[in-house]
């Protein structure tokens, strides 16, 4: 079971990498409403590895629509 705090910590770091305020990023956030580009994908892969020790692929991430989809991808692999 992944503690909620760890997920929040991951989201805070992801927001920082995307140059967003932490409160701008929640599970409901739609990726097309933020600056979700190739750099964002790369930041997300590195952070998922750092925080959860899981590798997300570019293909998997390209199917994600919301931040929650990304979290679910991570939780499936933990």
């Amino acid at each position, binding site marked *: 079971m992944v503690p909620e705090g760890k997920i929040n910590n991951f989201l805070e770091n992801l927001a920082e990498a995307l*140059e967003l305020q932490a409160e701008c990023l929640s599970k409901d956030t739609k990726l097309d409403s933020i*600056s979700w*580009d*190739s*750099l964002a*994908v*790369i*930041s997300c*892969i*590195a952070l998922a*590895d*750092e925080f959860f020790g899981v*590798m*997300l*692929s*570019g293909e998997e*991430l390209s199917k994600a629509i919301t931040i929650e989809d990304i979290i679910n991808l991570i939780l499936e692999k933990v």
Partner: protein
Amino acid sequence: MDIASYLPEKVITNEELANKFENWTPEKIFEKTGIKLRHFADENENVSDMGFFAAKKLLEKTNFNKEKIDMLILVTQSQDQCLPSTSCMIHEKLELSSQCGNFDINQGCSGYIYGLSIAKSLIASGEFKNVLLITGDTYSKLINQNESSVATLFGDGATATLIVPDYPGKKGIGPSYFGTDSSKKDYLICNYLGLKKPTKNQKPLMMNGPGILNFTLSILPKELNIYLKQNNLLIEEFDLVLFHQANKFILKSLYKKIGIEDKGIISLENTGNTVSSSIPMVLETIIQDNKKNVLLAGFGVGLSWAFTSVVI
């Protein structure tokens, strides 16, 4: 061992790139890539020219008698032409001895370590004495300059390293270790200069950034451990760690994962990712310091990885 490098005059700044690519600012490019500027070879400047300039600088710097060089190795993926080899072009420009052999190695980001390992083996065989190892690439000519993911990263450049058996101060090359995951060969690919038909479908360099990051973060730490174990080495024994200077983001993530942020070098501000020249370009800047034991790692096109160490 001694090193000299050459960078073409033409410079591309982050400001120029930010003007071209929406959503990018000069600050953001620097923050993510660690690069402020990259050098691009002129239309009429080729790897043989750049390699020649680097080697000329090295020979002047070391005062080494070029007649004594008995093997010239060039690591490149942007050769002047199909044949003869680009190393042959440099052999002529440098006016090396007719008793000096030459060959090219088609390798990218792991290429310098391939070159060092081969040079070391040639000398250890006793059949060769003084090896000139040149690296050089003009990726700017393989790249679609409107593709932000590659146009911001790569720069052109060349280096020359002289490897001799009895260098004063006993500098030396340690054991090497190589690997390839050829199932990921399409992650960094360019089919220019290839003969495979239909040639009209040849495309500029394509890079799968997320795939390469994935590969690097999962393979490199694991393989580094194997290299260290196989050779009874400890990471603590090294003063510095110098990985291929791909970009700041990937290096930061990698050094952090391995736990070597304190000794991992990131230095590509004024060059960009110069492929096989990235490691020797940085080595050149630290070679003058007190004797140091440096762990080297290359990773990239292939996808490949390579480890060695040098005492400089």
